[in-house]
């Protein structure tokens, strides 16, 4: 099941990241990412509200997925993770390399300067895998801990739609 989460991460490169502001408002923005196994790298500005939020509370929520033609083709992840800055020079260089491989368009831009850009990593703790090919609303939950990955049984919230929801014509 972890393999399926990695597949979905590998097949995408844009995610929504939510942090919580000091005043308690959630704040959701979109960022490009690259992943290595289930470890997720992204770059944010040191001057951003997001960076300040993470410095205060490292709990973040990530979503990976895309619009769909056929509802039964929905494959998405909702992830609870802890985010931190990558300060180790070697790991930072590796993260930047992975990000440039996943986002070749970024090569046109100046490389991220350490004074302006923070390279971040998000370590998933709970991964919800949505796979509607198994039924509308089908979700498996993975809990990641140092001891390994544990899966809880699938939950199906089909909203009463059952299998009647048609592809978008």
């Amino acid at each position, binding site marked *: 099941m972890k393999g399926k989460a990695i597949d979905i991460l590998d097949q995408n490169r*844009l995610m929504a*990241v939510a*942090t919580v502001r000091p005043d*308690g408002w959630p704040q*959701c*923005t*979109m960022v490009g990412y690259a992943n290595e196994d289930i470890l997720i790298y992204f770059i944010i500005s040191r001057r951003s509200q997001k960076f300040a939020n993470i410095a205060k*509370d490292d709990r973040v929520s990530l979503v990976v997925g*895309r619009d769909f033609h056929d509802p039964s083709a929905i494959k998405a992840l909702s992830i609870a993770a802890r985010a931190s800055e990558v300060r180790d020079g070697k790991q930072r260089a590796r993260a930047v390399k992975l990000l440039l491989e996943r986002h070749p368009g970024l090569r046109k*831009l100046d490389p991220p300067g350490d004074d302006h850009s923070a390279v971040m990593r998000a370590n998933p703790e709970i991964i919800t895998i949505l796979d509607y090919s198994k039924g509308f609303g089908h979700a498996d939950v993975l809990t990641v801990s140092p001891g390994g990955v544990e899966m809880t049984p699938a939950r199906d919230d089909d909203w009463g739609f059952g299998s009647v929801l048609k592809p978008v014509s």
Partner: protein
Amino acid sequence: MDETATQIFSSHRIMAISTVRPDGWPQTTLVGYANDGPIVYFLIFRASQKFANIANDNRVSLAVGDEPPDIRLAQAVYAGARASEITDPAARERAWQLLKQRHPNLVGTPMPDPSAAAMMQAECEHLCVLDYTKGLGHTDALNLPSERESNQRLEEVER
């Protein structure tokens, strides 16, 4: 509402929505939506964590945008909004019509039973419009008066 924000909201149909769990963790999911200006409509499962989160704290954050062919064309809108359930049957029916227009695959399916799915609205209060066509990293922030504040202002004018 800002023209670029309106254009981005109106040309998409799925958004990321973040709520805050009672334990303080943010929680983000993708939902289909339809909007009428700065009011965004969506359905959520009544038994969902998201519904419980909103019942506990109605502040939500929305993100709409997709991947551009070139980062210099990136456009997205982020909104701080307050979410609430629509309980008035006529308002719920109107929201369902808007959702069906935006999501044609819903046409012909009955509105999900209100006992299972809640029809929600989110009223945008703070908007951040990211528009890299105006320059890399360009963002505009604007605040929209909430209905409550508008009413207060109206009352002040009337006084």
